[in-house]
């Protein structure tokens, strides 16, 4: 039996992409509505596989932490699944495993949430959803579990702080986002985690896991009616806003460049270079997206990979990216190289970046990038998981429901001048943070 529903969906999408714009309605059939409690729902119905992906996210990521209570947002999310609605943590794990489901969490600077992958057959789906509802609506934050998780987290933090990549990430975030929660470590610091109390987590849950700010994404084998019931069930008892909900503060430009050197016995130097980048809603999003593909995002084809790896053998992996967030997320270049090559590698990276900022990409590079991004569009939505991820992002950042239909036209519109102008607006080589961790004595002596 050949079920071609998803293919038809992609085909329809591709058709509309090749037509002149002005089509009246979206052909990627994203359905959206609000639950009775005010949560936003995005749903794509697809019956190819007997499975269902469901997530509920909130603006409750580490961007809502404070310096004094760093780690509170992550701990709140982590504890949801460790005791809820009268079920112990082990009962939660076992009930989920009993039906072969997977209950996971999502956590980043902006978002926190819970996601579920389950078979769609009601015998499996219903018990899985029941557990998920308890986790979302009736978390207990047991004192005893919290005490243990605090100790585990502290051990994990101490361990992580011996790793050169962790040290580099921490130093980078602090320097790029001084005095901003994006600069805090999501998992907290030893001192702040030690001080997290049950009331902190309950308070954070009540003020941030709000029905009116929840985004439910559902993809897969359910009817509209079933999806409506699922969304109701997962959001009906969520907290109501008592006061005006929190917002993540604005991110400022860096005043000046910063060079940070951290000694570590690792044989490689871990190098990070960057600065605050853009918001998810920035009008330059697509110009930077295409431009960065050429600079350091496009696998083997990027300029950074060509210069650093292919031509000189200086690194196994070198990349650049923008991570657009609710507020301005980082622009970042990263690589690792043998300690005594660190200086040379940084010089190659900076020369490549300056050259790119000065002259922009060539027409040929732009054409290559567009061919990849446009021709590869079907690969972005070729599985339930990928479509589900898009639903969650579109809902959370309030992107247009036509985001996927608009994707290819938006790429097509980008030209060399737009990339040059966008990079000039957002990347300032004289105000970059450069972090180097490790590489041993040879590297330290050089710097």
């Amino acid at each position, binding site marked *: 039996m050949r079920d071609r529903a998803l*293919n038809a969906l992609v085909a329809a999408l591709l058709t509309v992409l090749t037509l002149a714009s002005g089509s009246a309605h979206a052909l990627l059939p994203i359905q959206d509505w609000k639950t009775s409690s005010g949560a936003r729902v995005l749903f794509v119905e697809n019956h190819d596989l007997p499975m269902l992906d469901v997530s509920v996210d909130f603006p409750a990521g580490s961007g809502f932490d404070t310096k004094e209570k760093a780690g509170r947002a992550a701990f709140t999310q982590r504890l949801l699944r460790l005791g809820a609605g009268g079920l112990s943590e082990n009962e939660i794990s076992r009930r989920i*495993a009993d039906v072969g489901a997977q209950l996971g969490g999502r956590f980043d600077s902006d978002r926190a949430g819970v996601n579920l992958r389950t078979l769609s057959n009601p015998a499996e789906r219903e018990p899985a959803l029941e557990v998920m509802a308890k986790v979302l609506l009736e978390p207990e934050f047991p004192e005893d579990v919290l005490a243990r998780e605090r100790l585990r987290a502290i051990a994990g933090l101490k361990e992580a702080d011996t790793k050169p990549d962790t040290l580099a990430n921490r130093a980078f975030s602090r320097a790029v986002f001084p005095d901003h929660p994006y600069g805090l470590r999501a998992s907290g610091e030893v001192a702040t985690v030690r001080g997290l109390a049950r009331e902190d987590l309950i308070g954070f849950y009540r003020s941030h896991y709000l029905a009116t700010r929840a985004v439910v994404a559902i993809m897969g084998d359910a009817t509209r009616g079933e999806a409506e019931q699922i969304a109701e069930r997962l959001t009906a008892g969520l907290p109501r806003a008592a006061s005006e909900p929190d917002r993540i503060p604005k991110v400022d430009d860096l005043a000046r460049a910063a060079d940070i050197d951290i000694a570590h016995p690792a044989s490689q130097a871990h190098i990070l270079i960057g600065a605050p980048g853009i918001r998810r809603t920035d009008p330059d999003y697509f110009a930077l997206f295409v431009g960065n593909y050429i600079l350091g995002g496009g696998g083997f084809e990027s300029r950074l990979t060509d210069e650093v790896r292919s031509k000189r053998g200086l690194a196994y992996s070198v990349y650049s990216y923008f991570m657009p967030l609710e507020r301005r997320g980082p622009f970042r270049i990263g690589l*690792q190289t043998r300690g005594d090559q660190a200086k040379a590698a940084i010089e190659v990276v900076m020369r490549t970046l300056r050259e790119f900022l000065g002259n922009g990409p060539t027409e040929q590079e732009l054409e290559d990038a567009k061919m*990849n991004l446009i021709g590869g569009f079907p*690969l972005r939505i070729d599985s339930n998981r990928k479509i589900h991820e898009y639903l969650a992002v579109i809902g959370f950042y309030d992107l247009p429901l036509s985001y996927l239909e608009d994707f290819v036209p938006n790429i097509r519109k980008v030209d060399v001048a737009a990339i040059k102008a966008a990079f000039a607006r957002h990347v300032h080589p004289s105000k970059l943070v450069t972090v180097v961790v490790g590489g041993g004595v040879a590297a330290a002596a050089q710097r």
Partner: protein
Amino acid sequence: MLQCQRKSPKVADSSMRVCALLWFIVLAVNGFAPALAAAAASPPVHEYRLDNGMRVFVREDHRAPVVVSMVWYVVGSVDELNGTTGVSHALEHMMFKGTERIPNGEFSRRIARAGGRDNAFTSRDYTAYFQTLHRDHLPLALEMEADRMANLILSKDEFGKELRVVMEERRWRTDDRPDSLMYEGLMATALLSHPYRQPVIGWMNDLKNMQVEDARNWYRQWYAPNNAILVVVGDVGGEEVHELARKYFGGIAARELPARGKFAESEQRGPRRITIKAPSELPSLLMAYRVPKLEDPEKDWEPFALDVLEGVLDGHDGARLQAALVRGSRLAAAAGAGYQGVGRGPGTFLLSATPSEGKTVEELEQALKAEVRRIAAEGVREDELARVKAQVVAAQVYARDSMFAQARQIGSLEAIGLSHRLIDRQVERLREVTAEQVQQVAQRYFNDDALTVAVLRPQPLSGKRPPSPPSGLRH
């Protein structure tokens, strides 16, 4: 059935060392992290053999106008000799360096211009190359794969440069990671003669001394159609792929392959222990037991019982190791189990743990052994057995959401001499496993004489002379 995902760098939690470690068995040219899920109650696989001996497997998946194409060569680090360890992986890197028709760098560029993504991976047992792209561009991928199967240029200059990249990869993956050093040391200690003791990426000294001639020889010996398998999953028909395979690969002549080494590890006569000192805060523990591997899926039952044992110990967050050691006694900050029983070399059952602050690896070793002993003495409960089976059945459905996972499953089984039919058959065989069988394997294989233990002794970041960087390369 073990599912591994590379940990998010944001997570400070040191959970599931075993899972992270299994990644070091397979190396990719560029980082990526597909799930190794068990596969589906599956749509059929079309199967062909070209006149030159190349085998072709096609699974239709018409959900999107996309295909995954993989060419697998049955050669990996298990075929390597001491002195040139890592040559399979080094050759994998060189396969992107051009032919007369497709110059250096053009392979990936053309795939990218067709909207595709490409990469490769090397394991102990095989080397595989893949492209994911729009179905219409499958001919491009196959044409270029056929070209580099026969016409690769291996220049001394490019080889020298790429070896530097590979050495950076080794530093990044292994030398600067205590977990990886432990796993590498563990395998080299648990096995004395079998080449599974060698790291896939190769020993650093072998990489430093490797010559382009080594890669040329390797290519000449093993890159032949009769040692290759094409796997295509996606929006295509079987005959269509068969036709394309004949067109592009059919003209490449079969070659006589070298005799494969017949390796067997002799019986272990007592426990083995090693200590790794590396910059770290927490100590940790990694234990390997010699266990059977899967040879005959119809007759063997022990490998399936060992799979279930792994699930009972570590199949979910409330499974025995977590419930007992992390959540219960709180001896461990993390604990895990993993069975490697599908491969060309011997089987291994791994147990791992990181002690909680104030606890020792010695206490944890006893606690891990006690969990296995408990199963040997008391068996497992029916609800535990049912839970593992439910997870296996569901994972089989979930795997069908990923064309990549499906292609990988087919290729990895065929490459090691098992049939892709095992994808479905193993689910049935796992469902037949009884509580008594799980108890029996726990009784039979977990004795100290077949045990190797690696312990990480943390070193302060400042208190140790850093390793001096190697002084240039020989070309």
